């Protein structure tokens, strides 16, 4: 249970709204300004996130020098009605400042890289506008001090990702991928709204302090329900099983977008939501088990997909799913794992952005070729990309002293001491995942950089301009150092302790599980070398066995969704249309036909002959008089 008290913002933190204003201003100018901003649009698009990052650094050091490390800046009352008070306030605390630095820092590097990558795109200005919108939404998400404002950012991220995945909207595949990402995200969003409704009906408030302060009064049932709803919401944004299917198709967007979605924004939102909601999860052990299981399933799921894909970006996408799975697993462990989930998230932000930007650099030099079977021997042609990609590779597979080793192994180690005997299952799966990670990443390295060249004679691989290699170098430095910096001396742990608590047991840096993970990773490297380093890589993909075929088709995720959800939905709509046409419309239409037919016959009495009218009047009058006489008598 956290005992941190939130105070009103002081000093530099009073200006925390600047974080939102910079990228929002950039997005507004670039999107509203239209073509006349084409010439200098990218410069503004770069300047705004960098300005936000500079402010973020100032805010970080101001927070570091302060004893009250949870400061809330009230901006205005958004929904002040009777029992519902929703304020737009920005909460700067150790957790949110970590995300702010990641989002603006890695985000700025990716945006600088985009200047080079998108140099020849006719819509570069629009692209930078969307990127700024993406960053602004993500910053609102992490800075919100209540769930409703968080939800606004959450939806903004969904919108921006839709716009960016479908950026090349003239390609049908990109348009479909964008819609898919949006629709799958809606499922998670619906779950998050239900969680917010439940909070309001149970606690009468949606602010973090209000909900966390009264969650223990709601009983474990409410806490578990909230935990599970938040989990499903997080699954949508973070592409965890069962809402994982959009992430692989999201590779249709430009490569910097993939880097941004996978490293700095979007998929990290789910992890943030869960870690932020740690007081709820503390009272819901069942929900934590569910989170850990989802994470474990996804980390294997993503790893298997990544091992079979020949498309370098899709393989990296599978890898992201797998890494986020580790973060969910960490979050599912409770206080023992939150810190390491965030540590992994931050270091993953560096090395995954580095890997994606590296992949983008390779594509830039290879005429947008994405098939790794048509790469090979590129190390000579793109030396800077090769070195930065290689450092990120060493970080992700967890070789000490690179980032992944420090950040991932504590999660694996903590598995064995949490959740009883089930923890052993989770732990063994996580160990296996470490081996798979090493396998697919080594496969990617070997297929791309080593061996014989397999590309067409038309391709002329060349190193990217320095505006692209610069960010890659910075990210590579982060991939090398971030994990060690955060974990050694418990730096991140002490910093985050007021928000997420302290792990009950300290496992130290070198654990048994970590050593086993290292051995398994080396085994994965060895297997990958035996299959892709020692033997030549065929240009045409071999048929493969059952698991390979399944993994190439995303382990039938789409087939599952289509057969279980889409087809029954279509049948239901067809049945409803049939029932509407034949049932409801039939009833109404036959009633109308009855009235119409009757009136068609009755109107024949209006024949135009005055004397027949007179006769009927006469009979009518006679009948009336007779009736009067009868009634009176």
């Amino acid at each position: 249970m956290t005992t941190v008290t939130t105070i009103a913002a002081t000093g530099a933190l009073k200006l925390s709204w600047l974080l939102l204003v910079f990228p929002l201003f950039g997005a507004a100018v670039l999107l509203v300004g239209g073509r006349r901003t084409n010439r200098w649009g990218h410069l503004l698009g770069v300047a705004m996130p960098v300005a936000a990052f500079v402010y973020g650094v100032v805010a970080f050091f101001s927070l570091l020098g302060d004893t009250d490390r949870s400061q809330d800046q009230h901006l205005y009352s958004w929904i002040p009605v009777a029992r519902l008070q929703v304020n737009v306030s920005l909460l700067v605390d150790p957790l949110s400042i970590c995300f702010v630095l990641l989002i603006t820092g890695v985000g700025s590097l990716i945006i600088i890289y985009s200047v080079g990558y998108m140099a020849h795109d006719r819509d570069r200005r629009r692209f930078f506008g969307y990127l700024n919108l993406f960053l602004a939404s993500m910053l609102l998400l992490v800075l919100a001090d209540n769930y409703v404002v968080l939800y606004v950012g959450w939806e903004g991220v969904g919108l921006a990702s839709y716009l960016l995945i479908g950026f090349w909207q003239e390609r049908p595949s990109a348009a479909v991928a964008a819609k898919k990402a949006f629709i799958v995200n809606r499922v998670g969003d619906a779950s998050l709204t239900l969680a917010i409704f439940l909070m309001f009906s149970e606690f009468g408030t949606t602010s973090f302090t209000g909900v966390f302060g009264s969650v223990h009064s709601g009983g474990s049932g409410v806490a578990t329900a909230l935990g599970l709803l938040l989990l499903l919401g997080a699954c949508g944004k973070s592409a965890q099983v069962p809402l994982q299917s959009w992430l692989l198709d999201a590779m249709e967007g430009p490569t910097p977008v993939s880097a941004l979605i996978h490293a700095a924004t979007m998929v990290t939102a789910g992890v943030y939501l869960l870690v932020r909601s740690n007081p709820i999860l503390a009272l819901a052990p069942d929900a934590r088990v569910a989170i850990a299981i989802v994470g474990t399933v996804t980390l294997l799921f993503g790893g298997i997909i990544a091992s079979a894909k020949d498309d370098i970006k899709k393989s990296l996408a599978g890898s992201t799913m797998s890494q986020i799975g580790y973060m969910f697993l960490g979050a599912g462990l409770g206080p023992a794992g939150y810190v390491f989930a965030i540590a992994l998230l931050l270091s993953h932000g560096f090395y995954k952005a580095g890997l994606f930007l590296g992949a983008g650099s390779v594509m830039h030099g290879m005429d947008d070729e994405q098939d790794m079977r048509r790469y090979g021997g590129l190390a000579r042609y793109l030396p800077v990309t090769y070195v930065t990609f290689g450092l990120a590779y060493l970080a992700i597979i967890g070789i000490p002293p690179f980032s992944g080793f420090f950040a991932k192994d504590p999660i694996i180690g903590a598995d064995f001491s949490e959740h009883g005997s089930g923890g052993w299952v989770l732990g063994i799966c996580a160990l296996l995942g470490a081996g798979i990670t090493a396998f697919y990443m080594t496969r990617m390295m070997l297929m791309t950089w080593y061996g014989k060249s397999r590309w067409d004679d038309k391709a002329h691989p060349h190193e990217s301009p320095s505006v692209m290699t610069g960010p890659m170098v910075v990210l590579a430095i982060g991939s090398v150092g971030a994990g060690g910096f955060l974990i050694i001396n418990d730096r991140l742990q002490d910093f985050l302790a007021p928000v997420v608590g302290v792990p009950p047991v300290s496992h130290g840096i070198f654990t048994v599980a970590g050593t086993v993970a290292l051995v398994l990773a080396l085994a994965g490297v060895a297997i990958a070398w035996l299959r892709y380093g020692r033997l030549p890589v065929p240009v045409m993909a071999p048929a493969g066995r059952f698991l390979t075929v399944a993994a190439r088709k995303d382990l039938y995720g789409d087939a599952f969704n289509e057969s279980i959800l889409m087809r029954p939905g279509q049948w239901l709509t067809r049945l409803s249309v049939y029932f509407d046409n034949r049932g409801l419309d039939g009833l109404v239409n036959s009633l109308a036909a009855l009235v119409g037919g009757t009136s068609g016959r009755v109107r024949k009495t209006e024949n135009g002959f005055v004397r027949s009218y007179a006769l009927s009047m006469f009979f009518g009058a006679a009948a009336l008089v007779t009736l009067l006489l009868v009634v009176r008598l």
Partner: protein
Amino acid sequence: MSPVHYVSLAVILFVIGAVGVLVRRNAIVIFMCVELMLNACNLAFVAFASMHGNLDGQVIAFFVMVVAAAEVVVGLAILMAIYRARRSASVDDANLLKY
């Protein structure tokens, strides 16, 4: 003097008028038959007024006459218009307003 004779005469006149309205085609004859029916009613009103010894029936009879006069003015005007347009005064020929 029993009112029976007056009422009997009124009934006979009314029936003659009603039958005329129903069977004749010439609009002017139909008009005359309508007048006959109105006057049969007037006769009955006046007879009953005399029998009861008050003036109510006689007053009604005057009202009927006024209305009948007005009706004749409007009706004959319409009739003249129809006759000019169609060269016929038969009510069966003016049968365009129908289903």
